[in-house]
């Protein structure tokens, strides 16, 4: 009891700040006042100690609101992205690093707070963090991924009882509840909070927040435009991010006659008449980004965003899928052996991509990446897994088969060309017929 008291935050000093921060949060997230109030009521007192599962459509402000509330209440927080932390070890170590404010850097040899590969070590680390910081909060984003790892989910849901301390607050954030929710959680105590989709008036309010980025002379025109825009787009699409993006783009197109000096910005009637064809055209451009007018443009944008080892993996996978294994020696061997047998002529690349083994992919990767010593590292496997998740590589062997994993390359050729151009890899020697 003494320990509990000693770790309480000095509430009387911070109450004013908290209220101010929460008010700021309400202004920042219009339409989310009920959710902010509910989260505040459930999180303000560590003793309430109810694990929360927050769900709602993408772009409904779940993570933003939660982080804002936790920041306003000054609760020690560890944010865990369940896509990035795919293994339990990665998840545990990342959590402990954040809770113990440990930052792996050059000075400490990029070592984590503690190596942690078992749930018992993780629980011990958490208990230490609770002792040091009073109460802690673990925020699991993209929690839908956890449904695929039942043992990890069971451990995370049981954390308060494993730590024997109620001051471990857990928050899971996902778009939808886990499939077969109660079976997946084994009826664990979880309070679900739903972030509903925005209504038309709330969307309008959100879009009007962007009025600050508009020239002051066009502000009133923008307000009128937003009403029309919502009226037109609300039945079709309710994705806030997309609507904000499209709204800015269409507004710029709509105001072109004003910029050209053909129409005055105060001539509301003419502008509104001009709006309808403008908005109709905009529907076809929804979910299409700049640079995406041509597939090649899309690929080049995508290719530049990949890490370098992923780029070389794509090239290696492309080569492995185009040539049969018997060609490897001729194509990728470091030194050519002079055998007395008649050397085989290189066959033409296959029309349909061929399946290939993982070892072969690694061998070709090592061959094409001559600049660095390419070894099979964990990082490489992580990138490989990411490519499989992105459906660039498809696993053709069964999941249960541990030996001889076979893959198939399914990315379009445009992407390979864009990647090869980006890393200055010459594909022409491999495109013979």
């Amino acid at each position, binding site marked *: 009891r003494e320990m509990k008291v000693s770790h309480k935050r000095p509430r009387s000093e911070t109450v004013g700040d908290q209220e101010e921060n929460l008010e700021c949060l309400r202004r920042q997230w219009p339409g989310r006042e009920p959710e902010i109030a509910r989260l505040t009521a459930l999180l303000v007192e560590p003793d309430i100690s109810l694990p929360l599962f927050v769900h709602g459509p993408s772009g409904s402000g779940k993570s933003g609101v939660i982080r804002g509330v936790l920041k306003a209440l000054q609760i020690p927080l560890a944010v865990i992205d369940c896509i990035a932390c795919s293994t339990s070890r990665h998840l545990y170590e990342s959590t402990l690093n954040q809770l113990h404010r440990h930052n792996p850097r050059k000075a400490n040899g990029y070592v984590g707070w503690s190596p942690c590969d078992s749930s*018992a070590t993780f629980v011990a680390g958490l208990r230490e963090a609770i002792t040091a910081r009073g109460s802690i909060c673990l925020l699991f984003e993209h929690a839908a991924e956890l449904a695929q790892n039942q043992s990890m989910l069971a451990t995370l849901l049981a954390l308060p009882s494993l730590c024997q301390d109620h001051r471990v607050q857990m928050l899971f954030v996902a778009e939808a509840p886990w499939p077969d929710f109660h079976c997946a959680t084994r009826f664990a105590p979880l309070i679900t909070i739903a972030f509903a989709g925005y209504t038309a008036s709330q969307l309008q309010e959100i879009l009007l927040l962007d009025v600050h980025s508009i020239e002051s002379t066009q502000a009133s025109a923008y307000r009128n435009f937003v009403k029309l825009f919502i009226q037109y787009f609300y039945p079709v699409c309710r994705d806030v991010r997309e609507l904000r993006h499209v709204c800015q783009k269409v507004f710029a197109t709509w105001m072109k006659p004003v910029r050209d000096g053909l129409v005055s910005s105060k001539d509301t009637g003419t502008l509104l008449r001009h709006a309808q064809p403008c908005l109709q055209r905009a529907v076809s451009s*929804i979910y299409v980004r700049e640079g995406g007018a041509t597939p090649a443009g899309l690929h080049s944008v995508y290719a530049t965003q990949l890490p370098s080892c992923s780029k070389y993996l794509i090239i290696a996978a492309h080569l492995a899928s185009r040539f049969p294994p018997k060609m490897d020696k001729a194509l990728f061997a470091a030194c050519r052996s002079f055998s007395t047998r008649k050397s085989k002529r290189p066959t033409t690349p296959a029309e349909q991509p061929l399946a290939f083994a993982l070892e072969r992919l690694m061998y070709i990767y090592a061959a094409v990446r001559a600049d660095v010593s390419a070894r099979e590292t964990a990082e490489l496997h992580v990138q490989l897994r990411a490519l499989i998740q992105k459906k660039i590589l498809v696993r053709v062997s069964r999941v249960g088969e541990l030996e001889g994993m076979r893959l198939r390359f399914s990315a379009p050729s445009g992407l390979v060309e864009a990647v090869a151009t980006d890393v200055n890899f010459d594909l022409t020697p491999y495109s013979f017929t």
Partner: protein
Amino acid sequence: PSSPSRAYQSASYARKCHASVGPSSTKITEAPCHSDLGSPNRQIPRSQIPRSRAADAQQPAARREASSQPVSQFAQLTKSSPPAYQVLCDKLEPSTRPFCGGVGGARDADGRSSRCVSAADDVTFQADETNVEPVAAETVQMARREVLGRLNQPRAESPLHSSAQAEVMEELVAQLRRTAQGIENSSALLIGPAGVGKFRLLRGALARFGASGENQARAECGSAGVGKTPGGGRASGGEGGAQDLSESEFISVHLHPLLIPDDKTALIALAEQLQVSSAVELSRCVSFCDGVRYILHLLRRAKPAKQLEARRESQAQPVCIVLHEFERFAQRPKQTLLYSLYDLLQTAEAQLAVIGLTALCDAPDLLEKRVRSRFSGRMLVVPPLNSVSDVSMLIDSALALPPSMPSRYASLWAHHVRILLKKLDQCKPLRLRLQLGMSQRDVLMAVRLLIAELGPACPLPSVGAFGRSVEQLSLQSIEQTVRELSNTETLLLLCLKKILDKEIAPPHTFAIVLREYASFVSEYEGAGGVYDLPRAMLTKSFEHLSALGLVAVSTVGKSSHWLPLLEGSSLRLLVGSSTLHSIVRANLRLPDSVRRFGSSWLQ
């Protein structure tokens, strides 16, 4: 006696199961709970009772006294308050007023969860309205902390038992007593739904045998900083109290499968909790069974006891090994841990009880033959809460305030709690939930939610607020999710439903859905209409449906690897026909064309 016949076991099991749902539960409910369960409040010397527990001890007497007085006497307390209350009530938002606005309507502006307000609520409202007066924020905060502090107490100490579990408790105590007296080594399974209070019950049973379980728990929790009452576990209950005190106390060892991945770790945990880890050399242990024998040998040496007649060493204290989530141990290959422990029970070397806690009623079927033959087969079914009176008793003990609270507020609180308990059987969400099965944990979660909502605006608990808390325990209905979809997404769902109803042979792919969508556009809208949308838009909308869990996308066949995610996948609708029908019929925001399309074939 160590291995009763199967027939007895099955009969006992059936009787237990019947007791959990049958009419005998009424009898249990009527029995005075404190005398049955041996509540620690009555047995511990007054000086040792912590503040909040002392309050509990005093509370029943105070309550009896208060209940004997007519309500009019209480009304005198608050006669001067109506003007102040009106001012307070006017300042409140309709949604935060206790029972004020929105009777029979939606709880919030978005109408996401409809509030259950019955005629009983109206009655309560009148009662509440005349009695509530403004309360200082600090007082409400103090009350919140007191109640939450009691709810967060370590489980054996909190006096939150349900009367329905009294019989199970007695049977468990009798079983443990046989081990404590050296008659037999016992093994049993406590079976019950998650959150029903199996662990709490076991801790309570162990606490009857002395302070050992508590000391052990304190040693475990020490680093985490959870405070415990010194000597709080030395309590005995009811009739067998004096007898229990003379018996040896148990050393409890907790093994949790999530923290113990293998047998070696289990040995370390066992040695650690028996406080002989410094002397253990794991390299000497060939197997888990050897290791446990060696550890028990060390325990006998560390705490020597009187020698038995045959000059055998005996344990000074019996050991109770608690296997949490028993089914996870049973699902491990070879079940070495379970086999070793149950095998050890058959020998005279150890004085041991092995109690498993599980939520699976068929957990014993998971055991291998060699393990099952060593397991006694005793299964104690811990029943969930059956009736409103159980819930009422639980809430009563959870919401009791200590006498340190300001007397005026405490009396107001007690009055409101009484009204809450009185009107509890008219709380519709609670009755619905009880029909589905409600555990102690569910009730306590609802109490926590109720406490979380308390504030200066709503300073006292009420039936309506409790009903809303119970509603919050449930998942959001899928109908609500569908209602929030855009018209395009609703249309795509209807298209998929129409394909299913047409009984087109599976796999139902996205291409077929798009074809159906195109036929809708041509029939109801015409080219160039609002819903004549590009494919990218429709694909994105469908992905959104998949992300919200309304449609399941699964890949089929090898050919699907060559295609983007949706193209070669088989689609499965996860929304029921009635839900879609009600959406089409009742959602006035849907345009006419979509409603006509939906109602053209949906029945």
